[in-house]
């Protein structure tokens, strides 16, 4: 009903998929054991891969630097466990390709105490110091994008950040990690916001929370420090509310210019788990070694929110939570934008927010594709007001340049709302993804 009464601010259009969060949203975060071997890709982020600084056979302590960042658009990797570097080789990745990475064998009997580094003192650090510390901690967007966080904290020349937005929306069905972090790590979040406010020189911070997590909003409000210019804004439950642009529009009523960045409207958006990790790590000068992951879905026996060491192989993780032998589909991330995995041989990385596993029993029969009946459901679903129906027809005719030049194809951020609502079962966003790749290739050529 909140939708009808417009009680909570929101963006226009969007869709309402079933939330499917009831299985895990009330489950406390639990610590995961170490797997026999950790598989650590050197590139878990957007940008240049990290460069290994350890040798095969070397003993490392938990939290020690394994690989340094390669330039500004890059972040380092830290050891998720104390152990021995077995091999520096190629490791499986989500794309199916093998990528450079490190195999680390944790010591079974070790205390696994985390090595301390150079603390970043909030009182004396300059904005640039904090930005450097965020990079040194290996922090990327934990919501799933894995974009190096420090890069967006530094506004480009001539731009200023007025409002820091902390994204606690988690609009993907099934995922409950941000929800649990907001409930259980409130103090870390506020510590992180202190660092972020100082780094960005923003005047204020708003924590955006969807109306299906009112307990989290209450917890955040109750714990808000008096001396901090921070508020918690509750917004409507709607997909894709957690998209940066949509959240900015919902909270501030502004639109990020086409092709622009949030900083063009004076904002920076940081995921709430990322903020918590900053608040947890920077006072100790530590690097990121683990993250909270929701493992859920009908094929999972012990669904939950787990703090899992980076590099834990998915196969090991799923065995720990008693996944069904009949598992047939596993999504990395939620079902709206997440990727279906072809094998369980990939490791959990910094960008992994969750896994949803299904058995063959839940796989719906493939629906036949009908011609577009111009019902305009997609037009009413698209959060950036494209005409997916028209784009879909052009995509089918392979008129990719027209899609980009006349129909703003490149503004599409692939939320999938159009495909979700299409009564003709036309794979719209799937075609747009391909079309965007082709247009990018042509532009590069």
């Amino acid at each position, binding site marked *: 009903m909140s939708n009808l009464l417009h009680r909570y601010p929101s963006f226009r259009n969007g869709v309402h998929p*079933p939330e499917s969060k009831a299985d895990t949203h009330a489950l406390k975060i639990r610590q995961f054991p170490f797997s026999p071997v950790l598989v650590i890709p050197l590139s878990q982020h957007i940008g240049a891969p990290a460069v290994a600084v350890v040798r095969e056979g070397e003993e490392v302590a938990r939290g020690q630097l394994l690989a340094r960042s390669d330039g500004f658009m890059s972040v380092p990797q830290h050891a998720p466990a104390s152990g021995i570097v077995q091999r520096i080789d190629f490791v499986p990745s989500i794309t199916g390709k093998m990528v450079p990475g490190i195999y680390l064998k944790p010591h079974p009997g070790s205390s696994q105490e985390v090595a301390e580094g150079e603390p970043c003192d909030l009182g004396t650090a300059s904005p640039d110091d904090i930005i450097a510390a965020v990079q040194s901690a290996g922090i990327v967007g934990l919501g799933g994008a894995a974009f190096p966080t420090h890069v967006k904290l530094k506004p480009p020349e001539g731009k200023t950040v007025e409002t820091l937005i902390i994204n606690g929306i988690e609009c993907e069905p099934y995922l409950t990690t941000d929800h649990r972090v907001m409930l259980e790590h409130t103090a870390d979040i506020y510590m992180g916001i202190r660092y972020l406010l100082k780094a960005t020189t923003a005047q204020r911070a708003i924590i955006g929370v969807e109306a299906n997590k009112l307990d989290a909003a209450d917890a955040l409000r109750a714990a808000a420090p008096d001396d901090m210019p921070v508020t918690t804004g509750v917004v409507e439950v709607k997909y894709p509310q957690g998209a940066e642009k949509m959240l900015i529009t919902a909270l501030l009523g502004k639109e990020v210019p086409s092709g622009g960045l949030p900083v063009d409207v004076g904002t920076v958006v940081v995921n709430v788990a990322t903020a918590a990790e900053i608040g947890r790590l920077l006072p100790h000068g530590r690097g990121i070694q683990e993250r909270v992951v929701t493992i859920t879905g009908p094929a999972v026996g012990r669904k939950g929110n787990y703090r899992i060491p980076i590099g834990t192989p998915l196969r090991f993780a799923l065995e720990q939570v008693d996944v069904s032998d009949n598992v047939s*589909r596993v999504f990395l991330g939620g079902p709206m934008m997440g990727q279906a995995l072809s094998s369980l041989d990939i490791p959990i990385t910094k960008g992994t927010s969750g896994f949803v596993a299904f058995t063959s029993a839940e796989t719906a029969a493939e629906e036949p594709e009908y011609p577009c009946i111009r019902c305009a459901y997609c037009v009413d679903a698209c959060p950036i007001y494209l005409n997916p129906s028209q784009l879909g027809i052009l995509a089918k005719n392979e008129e990719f340049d027209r899609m980009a030049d006349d129909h703003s194809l490149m503004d599409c951020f692939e939320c999938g709302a159009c495909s979700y609502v299409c009564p003709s079962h036309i794979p719209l966003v799937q075609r747009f993804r391909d079309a965007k790749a082709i247009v990018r290739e042509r532009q590069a050529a």
Partner: protein
Amino acid sequence: MSAKNKTLEIDTSPHIVSGASVEVIMRNVVFALVPVCIFSVYVFGLTALITLTAATLSCLLTEHVLCRWRGDRSTLGDWSVAITGILYGLTLPPALPVWMVVLGGVVAVGVGKFLFGGLGHNAFNPALIGRAFLQAAFPVSMTTWYPALGAERFAVLPPSTFTLPFASPVYDSISGATPLAVIKFDGDITAATDLLMGLTSGSTGETSGLLILAGGLYLIARKMMNWRIPVAIFATVFALSGVFYLIDPAAYPGPLFMLFSGGLMLGAVFMATDMVASPMTSFGCVLYGVLIGALVVVIRLWGGLPEGVMYAILFANAVSPHIDNLIQPRVYGTTERGAS
């Protein structure tokens, strides 16, 4: 070996869908039309039942045969041709000879839908194409009206129903004139309450405004109809005819009469809203509705025909793609509307 080692199924996101489907939408439109059909059989009796059945079956059969002839799977299962058939039947005079009904049904689906490329490609509402063909081919039969609520309507069929093909149909002397014809040619006005309840002469399904509105409200509530189209049509017809009525109440009919007479209700709610042949954007739908409403008033007040809903909708169908070209939504983060 555990099943976990086997290859997993992959597809591309989104991995869930809303459950909306073409069949479900089309089926619900058919459901919304059922009360209208039942009521028209009550008002006009057996001949309406025969007309509706012949119209629907001829459309279904035409679609089925054409699909098979092309070597495709039959598309009866998507329910769209059932809507065409029922709507087509509802636009016809109840006592129209059956052979004409069947011929028009073949034209509706064969020309109005199949020639354009089938589902999703019909530029015009196929039911109205069938009716327009009959109107041009058999103007007398298409404007000879059977009286409503005749005493023997469930016992005796009018002789015209089973006229042999290409023979001139014989009509009773007691044919009823439609309220629009009465006002146009005789200058008398039918009571608005009779119009609302549907107790007047007219096409098979155009007479009960209330049931048509109820069906429309059901579809709007289920988000299977764009409410802007009928609302824009009603508002335009009401406002325009209201202006002329205020200028000269003796020469022009009142706005309520305009709303509830003829095929306006059926056309505005069930025909103009054909998803395929109407615009996609909200503003485009409003423009489209205003255009239909204005054309209806112009044809009814000054045209040679008593009724203009069919031509108004067909004309607006033709304009619809151009409205979509002109009215694209403004893309997020830009100031202009997208070009097309």
